[in-house]
């Protein structure tokens, strides 16, 4: 074993140029697939971060109930069960917010525009306040006064309003009545997501009055979890903990997720038409991964395409390896004969060639990985000033690479396997050669 490995190792450096070319071909394939994996991995991570940032959480709970008039509305009342769940799982929750939301017309003078408005409790929105970049005005008064609004800068510009001026909010209450309110513009903020994902923010108490809810009620409970790896289980705890007995019996299918540009992570009412009214509140629990499913699907397809290209590259390389090994076998015929004469068994001869293939494959993989590392470091350090819509895939304008260690192993295993496969037949032929014929050969 040790001997065959040693000879194989030395043989690699025998024809440096040839080994270099073969390992180089493998390295190129490895570079391509690794960059592909790392890039998609990084993009998924960035999209997830940007999404959770835009949506204000990782897990989203909404509640639905029926009014006496037979209307389904979206609302969460104070619920001892939910409070208990929040308390029990407090260690896994980094932060949570309770928000109301509306899509009102904002009116100033003769201008009006529809925009997403969140009603938030500013005292529990540290994360949000930290992330907002104020361009005009200030956020100082938000805690003390309710009828203030923060607008994304472009919205303010569209309305032609200045900080300190008052705009009208026109919306429908939960039960569908028209309602109008007045809010003073406290500040403009940078439209960070550049996709119109930035919403306007006002106090929940005030938005609730406009929507016809009590001030302690809300529509959406958003939670940031401490560890995203466990987000699914965490969401399940809440889903199961909040499910009523009837719901369990109905075993209803998970509602499909629709992501709207306005930033609503779900489609609250549009779905089942033949819904029979129920008593009390029913909850829907979503998590960021469900929203990411579509993204991951695309990424999965991309990775599979990458894998196919990688496999094609490997097959091409394999042909090269087989030919080279056949050549090596012929070149080393006399040497093989000599080794056989001194008592080297057939399987040991085979092993020398196979070790060479493995070493070559591993060398190629390592070179490919190192090259991708260098490439990722160089490209990852560039700040890209691209089209705003691309920013969603980036992390603060930078391309991020994130490589799951599993795919490195998988790709390496694939390379080693194909090299072995490619070398197998020449190796076998070398082993099967008669020592006498091998020794009398003139090469």
């Amino acid at each position, binding site marked *: 074993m040790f001997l065959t490995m040693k000879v194989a190792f030395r043989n690699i450096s025998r024809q440096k140029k040839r080994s270099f070319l073969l390992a180089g071909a493998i390295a190129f394939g490895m570079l391509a697939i690794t960059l592909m994996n790392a890039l998609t991995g990084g993009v998924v991570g960035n999209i997830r971060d940007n999404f959770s940032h835009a949506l204000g959480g990782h897990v989203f709970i909404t509640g639905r109930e029926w009014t006496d008039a037979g209307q389904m509305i979206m609302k969460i009342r104070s619920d001892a069960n939910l409070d208990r769940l929040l308390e029990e799982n407090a260690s896994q929750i980094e932060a949570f917010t309770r928000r109301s939301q509306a899509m009102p017309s904002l009116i100033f003078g003769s201008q009006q525009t529809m925009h997403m408005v969140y009603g938030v409790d500013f005292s529990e929105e540290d994360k949000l306040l930290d992330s907002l970049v104020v361009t005009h005005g200030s956020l100082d008064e938000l805690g003390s006064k309710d009828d203030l609004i923060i607008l994304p800068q472009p919205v303010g510009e569209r309305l032609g309003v200045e900080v300190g001026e008052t705009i009208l909010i026109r919306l429908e209450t939960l039960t569908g009545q028209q309602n109008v309110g007045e809010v003073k513009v406290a500040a403009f903020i940078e439209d960070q997501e550049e996709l119109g994902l930035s919403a306007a923010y006002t106090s929940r108490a005030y938005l609730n009055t406009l929507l016809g809810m009590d001030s302690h009620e809300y529509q959406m409970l958003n939670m940031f979890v401490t560890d995203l790896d466990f987000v699914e289980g965490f969401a399940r705890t809440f889903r199961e903990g909040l499910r009523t007995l009837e719901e369990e019996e109905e075993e209803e299918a998970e509602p499909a997720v629709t992501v709207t540009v306005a930033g609503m992570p779900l489609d609250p009412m549009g779905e089942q038409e033949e819904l029979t009214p129920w008593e009390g509140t029913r909850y829907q629990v979503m998590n960021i991964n469900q929203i990411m499913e579509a993204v991951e699907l695309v990424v999965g397809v991309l990775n599979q395409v990458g894998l196919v290209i990688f496999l094609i590259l490997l097959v091409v390389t394999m042909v090269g390896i087989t030919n080279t090994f056949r050549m090596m076998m012929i070149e080393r015929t006399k040497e093989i004969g*000599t080794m056989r004469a001194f008592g*080297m068994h057939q399987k040991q001869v085979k092993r020398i060639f196979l070790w060479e293939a493995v070493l070559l494959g591993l060398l190629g993989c390592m070179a490919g990985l190192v090259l991708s590392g260098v490439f990722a470091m160089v490209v990852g350090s560039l700040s890209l000033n691209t089209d705003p819509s691309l920013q969603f895939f980036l992390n603060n304008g930078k391309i991020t690479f994130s490589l799951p260690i599993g795919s490195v192993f998988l790709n390496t295993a694939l390379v080693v396997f194909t090299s072995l496969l490619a070398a197998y037949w020449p190796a076998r032929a070398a082993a099967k050669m*008669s020592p006498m014929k091998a020794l009398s050969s003139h090469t």
Partner: protein
Amino acid sequence: MAIVELENVKKVYTLGKAEVHAVRGVTFTIEKGDFASIVGPSGSGKSTILNLIGCIDQPTEGIVSINGTCTEGLKDKALTTLRHETLGFIFQSFNLIPVLNVYENIEFPLLLGKNRPGKKETKEWIEFLVEAVGLADHMHHKSNELSGGQRQRVAIARALATKPEIVLADEPTANLDSKTGQSIIELMKKMNSDLNTTFVFSTHDRTIMEIADHVIELLDGLIVKNSRTSAEAGNIS
């Protein structure tokens, strides 16, 4: 004790439709400790007989016994093990492994076996051999850094590494000038008497043949003369 025994051995090569009778019925024995030479003109069957003794080829007919083992019907694995345990080889064109240095080339046959001697013991033995063939200064050179004579010295040491009963050498001096060739044969003779290893070599050089104590002369695949003048025994078979 006969360490090599051939009994009515024939070897026929088929080249397409043509049959070449390389060896046409040969019977002889070589005793332990012999310094035996197989001589004869080109094509007389010297290499064929050495290949048969060396278990890298098998006879078409007849029996070849090496160190008491009849090779008839043995599979490749058994033959390989037999070669490893009882035989050493020296080739006309040296056949050193180019990626290994002098020390490693000599050590190589030892590493092939299952039950190897200890590390220290191995080292001492290899160093003894390197010394014995006069290459102590070239221990870590690769074969392409050596002259033909030096290479053949390495080959002699390598052939002796596993302490084989028999060392076979097919025209070991053919690629060397006559002076170097002479010294190579003398070295072989020295090893033969120092280690009591049986040597069988082929040559068509008369002067070299004279050092042998057992000469088998071939012509067209048949023995024309078999004379043994062993110093110790003195008996001619």
